[in-house]
Structure formats: C-alpha cells, structure tokens
C-alpha cells in the first residue's frame, strides 16, 4: 500500500482531475446505461401487460 493518507489517495499525486475525471465518467455511464436498458425492458413489459388486460376485459364484456 503506497498511500499514506486518504487525502493523498484522492490527490492522486497531483493528477486528481484526470484520474477521477476518467474513472468517474466510466462509473457514471456504466451505472446509467444498465438503468436505461432495464427501463426499456420494463416499459415494453408494462405495455404488454396492459394490452393483455385490455384483451381480457374485452373478452369478458363480449361474452357476458
């Protein structure tokens, strides 16, 4: 371990902006992208469920 303090770790030997700017962008995008993909999947599932429910209701009112 070559960091003597937490402050030294975050300072990154004077390259804080560049190192954290790079790692930060990666973390940010790699958190956002899966959430967007998951939302897209949930949205299409939701709309399919609504469609099915509508079909069932149609069916019920048609037969009764």
């Amino acid at each position, binding site marked *: *371990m*070559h*960091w003597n303090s937490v402050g030294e*770790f975050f300072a*990154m*030997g*004077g*390259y804080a*902006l*560049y*190192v954290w*700017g*790079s*790692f930060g*962008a*990666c973390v940010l*995008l*790699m958190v956002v*992208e*899966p959430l967007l*993909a*998951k939302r*897209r*999947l949930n*949205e*299409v*599932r939701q709309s*399919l*469920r609504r*469609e*099915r429910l509508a079909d069932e209701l149609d069916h019920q009112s048609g037969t009764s």
Partner: protein
Amino acid sequence: MGDHGRFKGCIGVSQSLIQWFRYASPQSFYPLAGRMIPWFWAAAAVFGVAGLWISFFVAPTDAQQGEGYRIIFVHVPASWMSMFIYLVMAFWAALGLALNTRVSGMMAQALAPTGALMAALSLWTGAFWGKPMWGAWWVWDARLTSELILFFLYLGFMALQAAIDDPRRADKAGAILALVGVVNIPIIYFSVKWWNTLHQGSTINLTKAPSMAQTMLWGMLLMALAFWMYSIAVALTRVRAIILERERHTEWVKHALE
C-alpha cells in the same frame, strides 16, 4: 444397409443443428438471456472489484507518469471493448444477412449503444490522459481520429436503424453499414504502427513480452474482463427488450410474461 447408416448419421447431425438453431429463435432466446444476465453481472462485479483494487492499491506508481498513468486501467479496457463489440456486432449483422435469422439483427442492434458507450469512454479517458501528458485534450492523430470514426460508425448504425420503420429492412441496411465499417478496426489497431503518432505504442502485444509491470498488466486484464462481462450483461438486457418490442404481436410473447 450402408445407406441406412448414412441416413441415420444425417438425422443425428441435423438434430444437433436444430438444438443450436433452437436458441436462434427469439422465443427460446428470451428466457435463456434472462437466466444468464445475473451471472454476467456477478462476474462483472467480481472482476471489477479485483481490478479496481489492483488499479489503486497494488499497482506501483509509474516512473514517468506518476499516478496519472492509472487512467490506463479504464482507458485500455474501454478501447478494447469498443473495437471488440464492433466486431461482434458486425458478425451478428453478417449472420443476419446470410441466414436471415431474427435474433442476429436484434443482437447487432442491442450491441450498438454499448459499443458507442465504450468508444465514448475511450475518447473521454484518452482526453483526460492526453491533457496532463501531452498538454492537449485532443490532437488529430491517426489513433484518435480512427477511434472517433468508430464512435460515429456506432452512432450512424443506430441512427440508420432508427430511421427505417420495418425492422427487417433496418437490420439489412444496418448490416451493410456495419460490414463496411469493419475496415476501420484494423486501422485503429495498427494506427500506432503505420503512422508516426503521439499515441504510445501497444503495451500488450502478441509477439513481445508486455512492456509493463506484472501487477499493472493484471489490473488491466481484470478491468478488461469486468468491462467485457458488463457489456454482455447490458446487451442481453437490451436484446430482451428488443425481442419483446419486435415480437409483441406473436402468441408466445403473451405467455412469456408473468
């Protein structure tokens, strides 16, 4: 007798082929992808934690670049994945053109945004590395320019597919664009050799021993594995959404949701 044996052999081969093609149908690929996703997330997390640990706490300070070199642990994996995902995307696109399988086009479409993200990260982290080491966020150098073209190829692929309403035609048009763009991949890869460039040469090379400390190499490889597993997990999530979107009027989709 001999003919009979050959006939049985043919059936055996075609049955195992059918086993494989079974997964080429959206209907069976949808649940399969759903079962695989958690495992890829788990692998991405394990490799990511190990890779970050090495990146920040094990890998020594670089003699020339101090702590600034640590950007390599995200820059190289993002750059590798941006090229690799493109090849995989072009492979699926070509398969879709040749065999007209439905899942192929969906896979290509699912991979493009993740590839674009990797190319963007490669450019971004490259800029944040270039600024302290070269004194410039950007230079019009062969490596950087060809990577920028790769980013635009992904965007173009996505825009082209979004502009065509019929998904099958969109797949075909996208596939042709993807295949033409493949020529850019070797250009990126060999750009540091072919042209005189500011960008450093490859740190890892198939013919020579790597020119870096063992621990740095391990950190880079673990991070690359983490990015790889991440890409598979997120692309599989997206392909599931695409499958449902495109197949929404089929009978199986109605039963696939619980």
